[in-house]
């Protein structure tokens, strides 16, 4: 026997000793397991006390122990304690194994004899296993102090500002020409009805001018390498065709540009913009981009009006896309959401019937800077509606589309009802399934709407049509619905219909997530580490999420998550390095056949395949040690530390008391 093992069985006062004959167990282990290398076996009142720990340390020195087994409480409670004790005693901490004879034996069983026998088996399992434990060192990874924030909506802006204010550098990458995200498109925000621009613009400006923030708009991340503490990120800065050093944002170019295109992003298709444009007046940064896909010069080779008129010669048609590479320690993804495509529900008439709008279009209609200057009018551009129907849950809570609740539509629909009432005096009908107003001040807002005389019809709208059955319906849009509170089918003629389309994951969320090593739930939102206790972390160390990427939510919650993710990142930066448990899998290259069975199994993309050598390899910094690939490798080429085959198979033998004389063991 090469190993010298010490076994320690804890009384835990009477917690263990009350049900398990601790002395007998310890004595049994000393005798029956001696052939497996047990050289000393003791019992003690409180093993976790300093005296108990010293006992182990003394034995390590005296007996030259090479392995330690502690039969006590759950390892989740004191594994760290005893590993540390071993370390202090000069033994590698991973050569210590804990056996839970309190949570798994004394506390849950009553028959003393049976409990004692089970405790013996568990100790035998622990001893058999510890023989195969390896001396390990935790993986220490330094944390680079810079952070990448992807997505410049309110969540991303908040996160970037928190970190920058704390004195650390942030790269804020935004795909569009300006930061601001969806919030920049709104007129008012519920429930307080603050002007969206008024509260958002200062934050955007701050982010744009912060010395610790490198703002990269019109840019996208193309590649992420590395792991927590040391990510290497490639970012494609799309050609803007503007020399930003020279541009003053005077606006002459877009004034002179003759080429108009419908703005599908910021104006939600409700207005036109020029080929050279800033999405909105308060855009940050202030300089425009030339949309090459729609620019006359790029399409036809002539025009260059902007170039001619630019007072600072800032236009540069020769600019090319540029890839920059940055190094960061942590990443926050805040890429937000897309709006559900209301065309997918043909019976609501969107895209077919004039005067059926989506919620985002309606936001633009309300917005003082929007296409109608903030007046709510029909498609003809002048008539104010006399009746407006607002349809909740469009595409949400519906198994045909998105099964989840989009969380903001009720409140947003109430906001619209109020705006319509306030600005046009029109009769407003809200059609809802359930009214969900769970935020602070939200229910009060609902009460206010009730007082304003809004009609609330409880029922999911069946269809919207312009086929009039009666003269009163002529020329109107008719909303057909069951008023479930009355139990009657109703047809309500209105002038305008607003569809509160739900929130859904970005169309490219899956691919983007993959790049960062994080996964989407079946709904398509990124999966958080824990839905309640760790909503901004992900299963990939060093990658955090904030705002609507994690799931539908309103602005206050998005801001809170932005700040929360920032706090988590700052915590990591302050620690300077992190120690990762050395529970890792690795591949024996000679034995790997390159079958690629394991390649798709790792949720953290830790397994890479070398096409040249036709073998797979595991990146230890990405591996979280779940062991799935270890179990799956048909060639037995993958092994895992802390949970190796030898450890587990031996533990099975130990638990079944196999390498003992079975009868003798039972008699003892």
């Amino acid at each position, binding site marked *: 026997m090469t190993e010298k093992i010490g076994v320690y069985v804890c009384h835990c006062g009477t917690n263990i000793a009350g049900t398990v004959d601790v002395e007998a167990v310890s004595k049994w282990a000393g005798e029956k397991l001696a052939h497996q290398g047990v050289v000393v076996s003791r019992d003690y009142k409180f093993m976790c006390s300093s005296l108990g720990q010293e006992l182990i340390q003394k034995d390590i020195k005296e007996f030259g122990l090479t392995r330690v087994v502690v039969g006590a409480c759950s390892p989740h409670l004191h594994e760290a304690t005893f590993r540390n004790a071993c370390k202090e005693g000069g033994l590698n901490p991973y050569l210590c194994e804990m056996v839970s004879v309190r949570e*798994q034996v004394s506390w*849950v069983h009553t028959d003393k004899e049976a409990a004692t026998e089970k405790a013996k088996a568990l100790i035998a399992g622990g001893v058999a296993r510890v023989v195969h434990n390896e001396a390990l060192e935790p993986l220490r990874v330094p944390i680079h102090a810079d952070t990448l924030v992807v997505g410049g909506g309110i969540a991303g802006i908040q996160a970037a500002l928190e970190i920058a204010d704390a004195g650390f550098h942030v790269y804020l990458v935004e795909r569009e020409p300006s930061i601001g995200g969806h919030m920049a498109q709104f007129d008012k925000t519920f429930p307080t009805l603050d002007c969206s621009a008024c509260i958002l613009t200062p934050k955007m400006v701050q982010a744009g001018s912060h010395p610790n923030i490198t703002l990269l708009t019109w840019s996208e991340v193309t590649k992420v390498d590395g792991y927590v503490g040391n990510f290497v990120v490639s970012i494609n800065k799309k050609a803007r065709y503007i020399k930003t050093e020279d541009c003053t944002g005077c606006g002459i170019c877009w004034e002179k540009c003759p080429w108009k295109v419908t703005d599908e992003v910021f104006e939600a298709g409700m207005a036109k913009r020029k080929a050279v444009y800033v999405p909105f007046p308060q855009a940050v940064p202030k300089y425009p981009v030339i949309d090459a896909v729609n620019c006359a010069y790029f399409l036809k080779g002539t025009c260059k009006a902007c170039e001619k008129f630019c007072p600072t010669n800032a236009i540069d048609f020769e600019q090319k896309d540029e890839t920059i590479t940055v190094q960061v320690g942590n990443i926050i993804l805040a890429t937000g959401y897309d709006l559900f495509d209301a065309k997918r529900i043909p019976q609501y008439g969107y895209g077919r019937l004039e005067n059926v709008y989506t919620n985002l279009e309606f936001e633009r209609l309300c917005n003082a800077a929007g296409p109608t200057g903030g007046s709510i009018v029909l498609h003809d551009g002048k008539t104010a509606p006399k009746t407006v129907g607002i349809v909740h849950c469009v595409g949400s809570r519906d198994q045909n589309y998105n099964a989840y609740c989009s969380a903001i539509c009720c409140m947003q629909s109430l906001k619209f009802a109020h705006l319509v009432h306030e600005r046009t005096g029109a009769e407003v009908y809200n059609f809802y399934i359930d009214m969900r107003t769970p935020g602070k001040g939200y229910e009060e807002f609902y009460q206010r709407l009730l007082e304003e005389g809004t009609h609330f019809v409880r029922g999911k709208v069946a269809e919207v049509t312009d086929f009039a059955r009666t003269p009163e319906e002529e020329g109107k849009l008719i909303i057909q619905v069951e008023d479930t509170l009355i139990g009657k089918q109703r047809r309500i003629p209105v002038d305008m219909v607003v569809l509160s389309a739900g929130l859904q994951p970005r169309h490219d969320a899956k691919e983007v997530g993959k790049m960062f090593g994080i996964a989407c739930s079946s709904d398509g939102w990124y999966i958080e580490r824990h839905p309640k206790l760790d909503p901004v972390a992900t299963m990939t160390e060093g990658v955090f999420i904030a705002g609507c990427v994690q799931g539908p939510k309103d602005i206050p919650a998005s801001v809170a998550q932005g700040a929360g993710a920032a706090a988590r990142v700052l915590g990591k930066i302050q620690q300077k390095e992190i120690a990762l448990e050395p529970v890792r899998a690795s591949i024996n290259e000679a034995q790997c056949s390159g079958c690629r069975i394991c390649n798709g199994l790792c949720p953290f993309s830790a397994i890479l395949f070398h096409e040249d050598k036709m073998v797979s390899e595991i990146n230890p910094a990405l591996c979280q040690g*779940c*062991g*799935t690939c270890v*179990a799956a490798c048909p060639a037995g080429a993958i092994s895992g530390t802390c949970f190796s085959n030898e450890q587990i198979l031996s533990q099975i033998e130990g638990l079944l008391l196999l390498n003992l004389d079975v009868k003798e063991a039972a008699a003892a």
Partner: protein
Amino acid sequence: MNDKTFEPTIIGFTCNWCSYRAADTAGTARVKYAPNVRLIRLMCSGRLDPTFVFKAFAGGADGVMVTGCHPGDCHYVEQNYKALRRFILMKRVLVQMGIDPARLKLQWASAAEGVQLAAEINKFVEEVRALGPLHWNLDYQEAVSTPAMEEVTA
């Protein structure tokens, strides 16, 4: 064991994050259950290698219980589905080998479900008790004996 009721021996595999913690929870709450189950901690139910299960049966276990996080809650995102798939295929093999597939149980348990886990353990112990001893290894030793042709063709 002869005159007493048969006490099955059961090996359990638990994942570190949910079901092992469920066992802790049961302990902390002093929930009582049958002492027949001996648990082995894995990081994840995805670590479950069918070798472990066969080894346990071959080594004298009467039942094997595999536990993991509920589908969708896996600490490692979706490795418990891999355990599920292996479990289903293993059962098919056990049937062919003449081992009642009810001797292998898969149970999802969250860290909070100490009471439920205890109840499931009790249920499983009773089910295995009803099936009687498996004693795979012992019977195999006898089985290599060479019967006479007459015994065989009788």
